[in-house]
């Protein structure tokens, strides 16, 4: 297929800017992606033409805003092939989605001695809510280890699934290693042991077509800003029968059927979890971003990023003392690395001076850094608009940095 990279790049206004007088090479897509003009315009359009509070007003603007907000929910539903829009809760992002599940679902179901299972490659956001819940409830946090390539040890996982295990949370794609976990098979294993499963999809959603019915997960979490949408909004997919059995996360306006001082009756469905006036423009921008990637096609984006991954990996391997952290068979467009004893921070600084935006540090995965015996890494992560020419610029800049630093 013809991947019209030139056109796609022109859709993103920020890509034409310079940094320190050099063209910007944006390789920090794992942290956040840039936004196409259609997303930016949709937010400005909302405020210019139909800003209004939703779900309450009888007037025209409120109805238009409510429609756009609920339409966005339907767009998210279709994008991940959820069975119903009632299964989509808007949150502030992946982190809030995970915290919501910890509080609204698991907290009341956990007793002392129960176990929560996570993996060694989790982002802190998929560790801390569970760790804190374990501390509160006297439950135990168990960890599925990763092998030297950065893949989950499935044999260990099988051993760790026990009658005590009440919940299993794991990442679909590792933000640090790029590893794509075989989510469907893993979920099947957990379900066979009667364990509820949450998938952190923050890094998977921009890189592949996700189908929650095919995965058969119970919860799936992701953020809009990692898939070319605005910050401050994300989604939590919950199977409908589970959702109806969950308690509100926060209480307040917009979540109720009736309120008296004696008793409050909550609405059914996702609105029960969206107390207060929500991020309306965020939802609208989120839906626009999904429209945008679907126009290009997730399969095409995945293929494009895979080509960049292979190309960059080959070039990087030729650099002396290069150590790529995360060499799984199945990888998304993420490359973490260190070179010799050079501190990632130094590399990041000199790359930045040359207009190359990368991530340095522990990537909110300190236990994983410990596992691989490094204080941190430099991480390049690709988006749909990156090019081979940019990889070449990056390699040149990296070689210059190495020359300066060694």
């Amino acid at each position, binding site marked *: 297929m013809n991947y019209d990279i030139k056109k796609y790049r022109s859709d993103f206004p920020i890509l034409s800017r310079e940094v320190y007088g050099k063209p910007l090479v944006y390789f920090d897509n794992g942290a956040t992606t840039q936004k196409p003009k259609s997303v930016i315009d949709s937010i400005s359009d909302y405020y210019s033409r139909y800003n209004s509070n939703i779900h309450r007003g009888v007037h025209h603007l409120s109805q238009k805003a409510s429609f756009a907000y609920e339409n966005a929910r339907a767009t998210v539903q279709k994008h991940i092939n959820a069975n119903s829009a009632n299964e989509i809760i808007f949150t502030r992002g992946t982190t809030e989605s995970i915290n919501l599940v910890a509080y609204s679902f698991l907290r009341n179901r956990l007793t002392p001695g129960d176990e929560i299972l996570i993996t060694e490659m989790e982002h802190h956001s998929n560790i801390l809510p569970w760790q804190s819940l374990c501390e509160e409830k006297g439950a135990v946090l168990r960890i599925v280890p990763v092998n030297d390539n950065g893949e989950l040890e499935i044999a260990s996982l099988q051993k760790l699934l026990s009658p005590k295990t009440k919940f299993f949370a794991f990442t679909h794609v590792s933000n640090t290693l790029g590893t794509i976990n075989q989510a469907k098979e893993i979920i099947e294993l957990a379900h066979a042991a009667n364990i509820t499963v949450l998938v952190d999809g923050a890094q998977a959603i921009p890189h592949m077509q996700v189908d929650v019915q095919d995965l058969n997960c119970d919860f799936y979490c992701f953020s809009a800003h990692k898939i070319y949408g605005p910050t401050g909004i994300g989604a939590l997919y919950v199977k409908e029968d589970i959702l109806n059995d969950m308690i509100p996360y926060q209480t307040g306006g917009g979540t109720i059927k009736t309120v008296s001082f004696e008793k409050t009756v909550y609405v059914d469905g996702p609105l029960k979890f969206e107390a207060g006036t929500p991020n309306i423009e965020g939802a609208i921008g989120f839906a626009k971003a999904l429209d945008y990637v679907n126009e290009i096609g997730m399969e095409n984006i995945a293929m494009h990023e895979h080509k960049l991954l292979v190309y960059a990996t080959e070039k990087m391997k030729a650099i002396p003392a290069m150590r790529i952290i995360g060499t799984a068979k199945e990888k998304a467009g993420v490359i973490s690395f260190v070179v010799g004893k050079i501190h990632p*921070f130094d590399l990041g600084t000199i790359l930045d001076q040359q207009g190359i935006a990368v991530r340095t540090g522990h990537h909110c995965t300190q236990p994983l850094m410990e596992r691989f015996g490094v*204080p941190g890494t430099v991480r390049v992560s690709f988006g749909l608009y990156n090019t081979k020419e940019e990889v070449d610029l990056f390699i040149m800049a990296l070689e210059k940095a190495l020359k300066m630093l060694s």
Partner: protein
Amino acid sequence: MSIQEIENEIVEEFSMFEQWDDKYQYLIDMGKSLTPIEEKYKTPDRLIKGCQSQVWLHTELTGGKIIFHADSDAIITKGIVALLVRVFSNHTPKEIVDAQLTFINKIGLAEHLSPTRANGLVSMIKQMKLDAFALQSNSKME
């Protein structure tokens, strides 16, 4: 030399560089030539928070003057620390606490320092001043 005079000296040195890479190379070289801190001083209480890289600071008071020893695991950070050590060491606690550093802006590094690093730099200066202040208070009490 006063703190101000050392600052002026550094500003003059950096004014010779027109290109960013020369400036950074100078900083890197300065980092390399900074006397490493003794291993026994690399303790958690001497670690400065707020840096992406690790910075250790050990402070001594000798004959009324403060001597700083510092180190970092990142070479550019170490270069920046070396500049601060050069500016602050061999001055009285009062001089250090009162100093209003201006050289960082003048050498054209502040504009390049990202927030994470800028915060690290701010933390370093703050810690040096706090150490100087604490040693001054201690010596008064004795």
